[in-house]
């Protein structure tokens, strides 16, 4: 089947399949097995329980908020990095990678220290009546921080590759700047932008380390899904933990499919353009 004169196909393929099987697929199969063991009726009862539903709502809403922040901030950051020359640009570009490189637990305690009532940001926000630490906003802040790079790193290369000719063509036709952005530039970066937003949203849904320090973790109010899984484990309620974790896993699969569909669409767009 493989047309190549290079050796090592069977060895490389064998090692890859064995490793993926043992390290990735085996545990996921065990998780799904455990969840299936519950039976459909009990599975539904567990994942639609009051506390679980509250956790899903808190998680999804916070992830949406965090993604909305990163849609705006990420696009602005990508624009600045791709279009402008200014001193310190390399430093700014490097700083974008900090949320990926910094361990989530470290990010969690740092954000909590900043937003606590006596922290640098908390002191400013408290008189305005805004509470971030140990409140729903804190979950959003932690999710937003850990997913900053996704939109930037998706959009930045596409913006850099965009030639000036289309903009000039639109300009000679008399279009204003906002019009050119809305009808020429934004459509070109839209698939990458959407893929970046989806990745940020998916990451936010599963985020654990950064959130649990700042969330306060009150059931029904500031308890995220990943934490509820952890709590069920500590209560030795393994079936419930498996059921809720498998919902998170299914959400990850759906987001993966969404991102892949967007990328296929983007490829078709590129082929259509050339």
């Amino acid at each position, binding site marked *: 089947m493989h047309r190549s004169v290079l050796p090592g196909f069977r060895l490389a393929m064998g090692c890859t399949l064995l*490793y993926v099987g043992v390290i990735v697929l085996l*545990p996921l199969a*065990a998780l799904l097995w455990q969840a299936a063991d519950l039976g459909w009726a009990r599975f539904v009862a567990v994942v639609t329980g009051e506390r679980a539903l509250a956790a899903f709502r808190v998680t999804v809403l916070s992830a949406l908020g965090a993604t909305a922040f990163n849609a705006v901030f990420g696009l602005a950051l990508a624009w600045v990095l791709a279009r402008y020359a200014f001193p310190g640009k390399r430093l700014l570009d490097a700083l974008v990678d900090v949320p990926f490189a910094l361990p989530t*637990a*470290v990010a969690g305690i740092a954000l909590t220290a900043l937003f606590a009532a006596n922290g640098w940001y908390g002191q400013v926000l408290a008189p305005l009546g805004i509470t971030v630490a140990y409140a729903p906003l804190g979950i959003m802040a932690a999710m937003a921080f850990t997913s900053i790079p996704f939109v930037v790193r998706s959009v930045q290369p596409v913006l850099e590759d965009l030639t000036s000719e289309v903009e000039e063509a639109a300009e000679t036709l008399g279009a204003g700047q906002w019009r050119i952005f809305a009808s020429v530039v934004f459509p070109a970066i839209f698939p990458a932008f959407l893929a970046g937003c989806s990745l940020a949203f998916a990451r936010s849904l599963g985020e654990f380390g950064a959130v649990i320090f700042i969330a306060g973790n009150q059931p029904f109010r500031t308890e995220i899904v990943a934490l509820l899984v952890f709590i069920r484990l500590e209560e030795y309620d393994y079936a419930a933990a498996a059921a809720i974790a498998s919902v998170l896993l299914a959400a990850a699969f759906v987001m993966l499919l969404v991102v892949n569909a967007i990328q296929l669409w983007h490829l078709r767009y590129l082929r259509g353009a050339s």
Partner: protein
Amino acid sequence: MSAARRPRIGDGPLFRAGLLAAVLLVTALVIGGPLVVIFVEALKLGWGAYFANLTTPDTRHAIWLTVATALIAVPINVAFGIAAAWAIAKFEFRGKGLLTALVELPFSISPIVAGVAYLFVYGAQGWFGPTLDALGIKVMFAYPAIVLASLFVTAPFVAREILPLMQAQGSSEEEAALSLGASGWRTLWSVTLPNIRWALLYGAVLTNARVMGEFGAVSVVSGSIRGVTNTLPLQIELLYQDYNAAGAFAAATVLAGIALLTILAKLIVERFSSRDA
């Protein structure tokens, strides 16, 4: 190069200055602030207290365990990344897209889900737990589980860095080496690996940073036994919950330092690989 660059949309001086200022301000607040506060909090009680916090037996043990985990997990995932990239980049076969997706899968899965999944394989109520227990082999809540969970979460990192490069480079250089009589291993060692060395190095650095910093997956499988199975991120949580903020932030500076070194490595690798190109 054209002589004069024509202004493009968004290049108006007022818009440019406004957007740049806004982005720099928000970046300073949301990325700079957290980075700075770690070091400020760690040094709040002075350098003496900082070093005392770093050298408590539990924190020293956590640092050691974290390094020991990385020493095993990073080489294994580097080898896996090379094997997977070799199979995917150098050969045509059915199901290539599926295999690529499988290799990248752990990247999309919540670390908590990964930890729970491992519990159902090696834990007391898992598939192999009772057998392993009967044989006297302790995997769960011990060093092997920490390594396994770390392997899961960092499995895609090396392949992600080197695969695009290997696909872009094609196989002509390897074919030339083979036709000159080099063995397959010799070809890999002296042709392929030198061609991808910077991406490979960066992949390894990323893997290392994530292994050392992994929190969610490891916190499920390690059991967080103080002074025994606590890695550095877990030790940070423990100290923080003990209201020992200075100790937690002191331990956090070690991981923040590794994160900064990782970013520095990326800058260096980008510089060298653009020079090679």
